[in-house]
């Protein structure tokens, strides 16, 4: 991979982390001293993606906004990496009229037809619509692909298995991605899943399966490249599992008392690791790092300011948009 492409992956991860840190700050700012999940400028559940940036940056680097991405209840990293507008995304998270869904969706329900991005808060249920997007791309004779992302907890759901079967049966251009962050809320993977790698399940659906053991953006990029190329070439779907990291809680407010691996977590943060690697390889210097952080900070704070300035939806409009 050339130096510019590596710097781009780094910059994308920094942008995502900067966004998540800003949402973290804004989310908690007015929930003190007593945490109330429904209070504040950003109410509701908040599932942040810190630690999982390598998956988003590594996979989405192979896509254009003509390709589709379906994400989960933890969607921000994928939305950003796929090119969803930061301002409208932030406004939706704040529940404002300029949001992607005019405040009807919220952070688990981001829909952006411009980039064919969507997400579902129901575990594994974002997979079937991705199969249908791929069906539409295929029927229209394009080489567009659909990327469907879930967590490892979803790999035990029926929708996951049904989707793999159907996509393989019809040879559709889908890349199924599993983000294995070790935890389904409080249940460790060892207590939920009968196989040590979900990649082996691909064999049951006659498609290639690959597990990336390191939470490395370049390893993800390389493996995703094979899967996307296969889909674009009309050779059918692939399954890619990445052993990634849930750096923070399942949702904000999660004390993580159940978590036995917390002590080692900060040292596993993929962004400093990648930064050190690029510095050691001589492709990233102090000025690059400073510029990446400054640029990300400016873009994110602009988006937050945009969201804060946007109006709250009028109560009398609550029943709009049920039907087209």
């Amino acid at each position, binding site marked *: 991979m050339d130096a510019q492409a590596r710097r781009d992956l780094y910059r994308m991860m920094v942008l995502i982390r900067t966004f998540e840190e800003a949402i973290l700050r804004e989310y908690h700012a007015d929930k003190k001293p007593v945490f109330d999940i429904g209070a504040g400028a950003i109410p509701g559940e908040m599932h942040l993606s810190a630690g999982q940036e390598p998956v988003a940056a590594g996979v989405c680097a192979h896509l254009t906004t003509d390709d589709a991405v379906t994400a989960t209840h933890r969607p921000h990293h994928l939305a950003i990496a796929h090119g969803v507008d930061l301002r409208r995304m932030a406004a939706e998270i704040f529940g404002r009229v300029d949001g992607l869904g005019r405040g009807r969706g919220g952070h688990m329900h981001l829909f952006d037809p411009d980039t064919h991005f969507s997400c579902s808060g129901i575990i594994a249920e974002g997979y079937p*619509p991705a199969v*249908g*997007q791929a069906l539409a791309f295929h029927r229209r004779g394009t080489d567009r692909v659909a990327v469907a992302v879930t967590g490892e907890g979803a790999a035990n759901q029926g929708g996951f298995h049904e989707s793999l079967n159907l996509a393989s049966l019809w040879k559709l251009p889908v890349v199924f991605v599993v983000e294995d962050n070790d935890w389904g809320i409080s249940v460790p993977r060892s207590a939920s899943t009968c196989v040590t790698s979900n990649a082996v399940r691909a064999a049951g659906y006659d498609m290639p399966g690959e597990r990336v053991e390191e939470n490395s953006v370049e390893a993800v990029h390389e493996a995703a490249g094979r899967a996307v190329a296969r889909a674009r070439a009309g050779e059918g779907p692939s399954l890619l599992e990445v052993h990634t990291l849930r750096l923070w809680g399942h949702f904000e407010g999660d004390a993580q008392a159940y978590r036995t691996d917390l002590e080692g977590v900060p040292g596993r943060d993929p962004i400093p690791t990648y930064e050190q690697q690029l510095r050691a390889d001589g492709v990233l210097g102090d000025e690059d790092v400073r510029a990446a952080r400054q640029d990300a900070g400016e873009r994110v704070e602009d988006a937050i300011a945009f969201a804060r300035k946007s109006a709250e939806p009028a109560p009398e409009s609550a029943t709009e948009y049920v039907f087209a």
Partner: protein
Amino acid sequence: MTVTDAPAPSRRKLTTAKAMVEAIAQEMDRDPDVFVLGEDVGAYGGIFSSTTGLLDRFGPERIIDTPISETAFIGAAIGAAVEGMRPIVELMFVDFFGVCMDQIYNHMAKIHFESGGNVRVPMVLTTAVGGGYSDGAQHSQCLWGTFAHLPGMKIVVPSTPADAKGLMVSAIRDDNPVVYMFHKGVMGLPWMAKNPRSLAPVPEEEYEVPIGKASVVRSGRDVTIVTLSLSVHRALDVADELAADGVECEVVDLRSLVPLDTDTILESVGRTGRLLVVDEDYLSYGLSGEVIARVAERDPALLTVPPVRVCVPDVPIPYARSLEYAVLPTADRIRDGVRRLVGA
């Protein structure tokens, strides 16, 4: 009074099933984005003949047999619709919704709303409903009240061949998800007892029956019977019979549950003062209560006597014929309901 908005009367008769297929075929000719997928929709032609002959005409690229995998293929229809296609996807029996309801009510029905109107989901979910042939508790339900309760889906329920065609055309052209619920007993299937009303004139050209418009299929001054689907046939039979006794029933065929044509119901009840709701779905928390509530909310004084409901009592549909026909809204139960209302 609202009448079927069909064009000039035709003398050509079709069964409901053939009328439905004709609408799909004409729309597929008109719009290359329309396609059909579901279990046994290809060579078999639909277990209840909802797709007969389409495979021969349009081929396997547009008439797609699926695995028994409702979550995947209904979800796939949603994804295709989001990308601008117009899929018609069949859930073989409505009773099977339990294995795939998440795609239906959390995705198909909500994406437009959650996107603030930015994403459209133009698709038709067809499904067979109803009992009367001893198919037991898991293959005989109507369940339209369950679907109509959940926002974001239009619901149409044709009872006649002409409406089956016109509502299918409207459903395909609608930019929203439309659930098209056809009773097996109105399809005119050769292998199931059928009412003669399941074979009737259908115009050959394409036409739309507007979604959200009920039809007064029989006028009468004494009692309003609000009903839908196969129960329309039974209600008309009863109305014909009671007319000989001097009791005139007005029969309102709802045709659509979402949106519900409240005005037509109110106009009719305003004329008769007596309301009988006949519904093959379960009694409690359903369509019959909704219809009565809409009348009561607007003006309870419209009702000169308390309303009567003929529905499936709150019991699963039994298998044995004697038991099943004890709970279905049969002609006997409808007749008794009318008599209670007129005090005869």
